[in-house]
């Protein structure tokens, strides 16, 4: 499986309140949530994001509230993968459980810049920065977690 898209770059400690503010948590509708994705950190995000685009951030992405509305909003906005140096642990779980592809890669997080064109090979964990002509190696997932992702999320994996 591969992903290719334009990067939207953010810094450290992007919390789930700025990914999807609580004032919009009175719905579970994926499209409605996506319409406000990243609103309090990047009000133009929803206007510029295109299907397949990639979010790259530094440390502790997705910290704070456990709201699954955050990975849901990101996925429904068209984002194909989030790359970060580290993820907050609840967001990490939620992304795996809801089958939003995420990769931990400190080098990629440091070197990739806003607007770069990036390709990701999920099988090998190799991230190719087409703009800068560089490649980075992400941490592979343990088998157990790969099974959840490949099944399309936690509940689908339980049904098997």
């Amino acid at each position, binding site marked *: 499986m591969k992903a290719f898209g334009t990067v939207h770059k953010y810094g450290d*400690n992007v*919390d789930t*309140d*700025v990914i999807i*503010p*609580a*004032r919009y*948590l*009175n*719905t*579970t509708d994926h499209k409605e949530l996506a319409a406000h994705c990243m609103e*309090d*950190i990047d009000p133009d995000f929803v206007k510029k994001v295109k299907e397949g685009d990639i979010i790259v951030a530094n*440390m*502790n992405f997705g*910290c*704070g*509230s*456990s*709201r*699954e*509305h955050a*990975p*849901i909003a990101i996925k429904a906005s068209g984002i194909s993968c989030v790359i970060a140096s*580290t993820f*907050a*642990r*609840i967001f990490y*779980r*939620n992304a795996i*459980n*809801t089958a939003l592809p995420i990769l931990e890669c400190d080098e990629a997080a440091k070197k990739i810049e806003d607007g770069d064109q990036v390709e990701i090979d999920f099988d090998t964990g190799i991230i190719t920065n087409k703009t800068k002509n560089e490649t980075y190696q992400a941490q592979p997932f*343990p088998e*157990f*977690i790969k099974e959840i992702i490949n099944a399309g*999320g*936690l*509940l*689908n994996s*339980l*049904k098997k």
Partner: protein
Amino acid sequence: MGMTMTQKILAAHAGLEKVEAGQLIKCKLDMVLGNDVTTPVAIKEFQKAGFDSVFDKTKISMVMDHFTPNKDIKAAGQCKLCRDFANEKGIVNYFDVGDMGIEHALLPEKGLVAPGELVIGADSHTCTYGALGAFSTGVGSTDMAAGMATGEAWFKVPSAIKFNITGKLNEWVSGKDVILHIIGMIGVDGALYKSMEFVGDGIKNLSMDDRLAMANMAIEAGAKNGIFIVDEITKAYVSDKVNREYKVYEPDADAKYDAVYDIDLGKIKSTVAFPHLPENTRTIDEVGEVKIDQVVIGSCTNGRMEDLQVAAKILKGKHVAKNVRCIVIPATQKIYMQAMKEGLLEIFINAGCAVSTPTCGPCLGGHMGILAAGERAVATTNRNFVGRMGHPESEVYLASPAIAAASAITGKISDVSEVL
């Protein structure tokens, strides 16, 4: 190599003799929790996956506390979805307006968590119950759905940081100041993926309300859980609430810790976290002149009895500053009733405070005290992220109930000594 408290509880619930950091395990759950924001997503996932019954009607708690009493039509719809599901599945511990409280104050009060138990909750502050010597951690709605269906969850066994607590707190300094101090020291990802284990002979000088406030904010250091050793204070707390057998776990003498910090309670000063991260801490003497528009005393961190008692002691016979709104939110109906009996509500109302029915409301910018652009609040809550309490250009300063009450009187962030 020995195990930490957390590792022992995880091992026992995975049916294993021993676990070590990094190991992926499946554990049996003693309680699965959700609220009116996270449960609707879980119910939809539960139904979409085709499950029709829950693993145990007594081991699921649903607390309608975030946008309640319903703030708008959509919020009402979310609660209705939860209520209908709870009725249909026979969920015993469903708490709605009138008997609900803020979930992390309510579950310990109702005896729904005991030492040594394993709890997951679709709310990040589920880590609060570590104060009782339980393993409890926040998860998302899909984990909640899977937990409701199977009674199990997967975990990566965490390593741990040890906090060796000694000494005794000074007057007007509380557990909130201790945890803000710790977060300021190690940072918002200082305990990422790890346990924070609180041990040492100073623990006996911390009340249950102090411990609950501290464990509550373990997540603000990125931790998987925060957990306290169980002592006579813990046992006394659960004695009239929990009427089932429970097991007390202690860390092995040779348990491995990634780091050890010594915390002398006597050296902790009142601490304030500046916008927009809980790690941006300053002691009260370093705060300077910060004018405020609103004070919130409440939340799953600091809406308990001792918090209200401290705030009332400071506000008694005083008045909230002109142009400052002070909102006091007892965390549960029981606390509300007790505060009424003790005359605290009268003190708050005479001081010009608004006293609200239990709700998470303003803490997450839901309702009951939203900030306008440019406004500042001192809150006893747990997060001060951008837009957390309202407009993205508003600001939240996190502090103890004592500092919040003193600040309400002066209209700027103030130490208690400025008003008493």
